[in-house]
């Protein structure tokens, strides 16, 4: 019976893992253009002439992997923020990370910053720096008021940062012309069409760091849900755990946003669904959310690509169309 947890962990990881793998394997097969898998993998045809292979390996596969990366990062960051703030309605964007990222991307697009580094475009790099700036300010504000990291102050600081950055965004938007405004709007809706593996490789170190931290945070998050003091008296270094949670989840969110833009609703829909299935123990919820988040976003991207083929909807529109009604249902159902 105590092996229950170990067994449940194995079951959960393999179940959701299968789902994620299935999604990643099928997604490159689906798209607005019909391709033949046999041709795509036919080594005899030179790559330059093999359109099916080009579409598979250049257009669809990086896009699928980006969806998996962004989805798993945002979903697990959502779990961590919810545990940190002790609030199931928290999202990776609650504390101002996405507002900072949006401001960074906006500045890059409006003022046509043109530099690219290690395959990372100006907008992506600027959005990551913007998210770091926002996170840094929120953290400094929260620390200033409290010895440790008061979650109340954190929440207030985050909400304030969101408002402040939104004001800055409006200001910058004034300088943007029509085309730039449209581009910014599309960036805000999320875009996984990365067409190369470079952004993924650039984001990989951040992903590894985040996931290692999340693995360590699983038990501490369980304890944190009892309250700061109760967690402390159960042997948790609360300040250190909160700091780790805050920094790692913010890094994860910043990395995800710089790859695919601020795709909404994943950080809250996926953790909720997962908790409904596996329960609240973070040692199950975290890996399950990462895997399910990957599958979920890959699935949403497939929908985005095919629903109005050949025109593509931004993936954030699909996640919002699913997430909004889900939220309503959450609020309305009896507990």
């Amino acid at each position, binding site marked *: *019976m*105590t*092996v229950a*947890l*170990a067994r449940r*962990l194995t079951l959960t990881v393999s179940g959701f893992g299968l789902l994620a793998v299935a999604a990643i394997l099928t997604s490159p097969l689906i798209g607005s253009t019909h391709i033949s898998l046999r041709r795509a993998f036919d080594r005899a045809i030179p790559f330059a002439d093999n359109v099916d292979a080009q579409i598979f390996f250049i257009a669809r596969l990086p896009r699928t992997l980006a969806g998996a990366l962004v989805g798993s990062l945002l979903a697990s960051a959502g779990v961590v923020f*919810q*545990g940190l703030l*002790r*609030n*199931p309605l928290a999202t990776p964007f609650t504390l101002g990370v996405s507002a900072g990222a949006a401001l960074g991307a906006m500045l890059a697009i409006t003022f046509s910053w043109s530099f690219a580094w290690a395959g990372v475009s100006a907008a992506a790099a600027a959005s990551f720096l913007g998210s770091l700036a926002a996170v840094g300010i929120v953290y400094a504000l929260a620390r200033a008021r409290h*010895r440790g990291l008061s979650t109340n102050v954190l929440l207030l600081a985050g909400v304030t940062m969101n408002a402040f950055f939104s004001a800055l965004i409006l200001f910058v938007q004034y300088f943007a012309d029509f085309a730039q405004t449209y581009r910014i709007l599309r960036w805000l809706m999320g875009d996984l069409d990365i067409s190369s593996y470079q952004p993924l490789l650039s984001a990989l170190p951040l992903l590894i760091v985040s996931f290692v931290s999340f*693995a*360590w945070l699983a*038990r501490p998050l*369980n*304890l*944190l*849900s*009892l*309250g700061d*003091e*109760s967690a*402390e*008296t*159960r*042997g*948790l*270094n609360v300040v250190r755990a909160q700091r780790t949670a805050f920094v790692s989840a913010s890094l994860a969110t910043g990395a995800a946003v710089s790859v695919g833009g601020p795709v909404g609703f994943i950080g809250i829909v996926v953790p909720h669904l997962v*908790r409904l299935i596996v*329960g*609240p*123990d973070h*040692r199950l919820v975290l890996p399950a959310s990462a895997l399910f988040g990957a599958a979920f976003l890959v699935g949403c991207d497939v929908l985005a690509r095919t629903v109005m083929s050949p025109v593509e909807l931004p993936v954030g529109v699909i996640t919002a169309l699913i997430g909004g009604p889900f939220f309503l249902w959450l609020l309305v159902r009896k507990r």
Partner: protein
Amino acid sequence: MAHWQGYELLQAVDVVAGYPGRPSVLHGVSIEVPTGGFVGILGPNGSGKTTLLRALAGVIRPARGHIRLDGQDLTPLSRQALARRMAVVAQETHLAFDYSVLEVVMMGRYPHLATFEIEGPEDFSIAREAMRATGTLQLQERQFATLSGGEKQRVIVAAALAQISGAADDGILLLDEPTVALDLAYQLELGELLRERQRRVPLTIAVSTHDLNFAANLCRTLVLLKDGHVLAAGSTGDVLTSEHIRELYDVEADVTRHAPTGRVIVIPVRRSPARSQS
């Protein structure tokens, strides 16, 4: 396991402690919690009871003075090591997520687990034993949030007992205002539970409370705190007198014994006129 009678397991020595806004809630407080003892910390609101309890638990560090466990300062001990010896039962526990009772009790075993270790069969049997002792075994699959106040309290006590169980040395249980949220029946039950537990396993208990009767009947030693100073400390019979109660609460009270059960009862009569601070 030998009971080391008379040995001061946990002590506060001249502790000055407080919070960023109020740096000296405690002005040089010294108390002793003897091994196997049952200490009550009494005092009016704002006297520093909770602060003292927090200091004893190692949650806040004293600005001056020491907290000693087994004669050694608390400071170098890791939180986890401390948590294996000492558990705190808070006044109220609100969970952010829907953990089951079993999961809550099992969280008490976390201090015994290595970083990525999962609970083993031994942890589980300790938890079950603790739940049996608190009469909560039948609740194990229920969601914690759906329990009544008394049931929740008992579950938290079970978690605390599981937390300090299996320690080579005596475990310490600190309870902060345990009867506040409980109705009469549960108050009696909790008292019985604690007393029973102390008979069966080596356990040292310290309780901070308002409830004079509760303290009178369970605690063998009392510490009276007023304005961050120790007004009196010693065995319950010596300390719990009308004079002390008047000094502590500005209340005229009768301290008598209930003949049939032999229990000490404190009956508040009226407020006494406020006196100048001593």
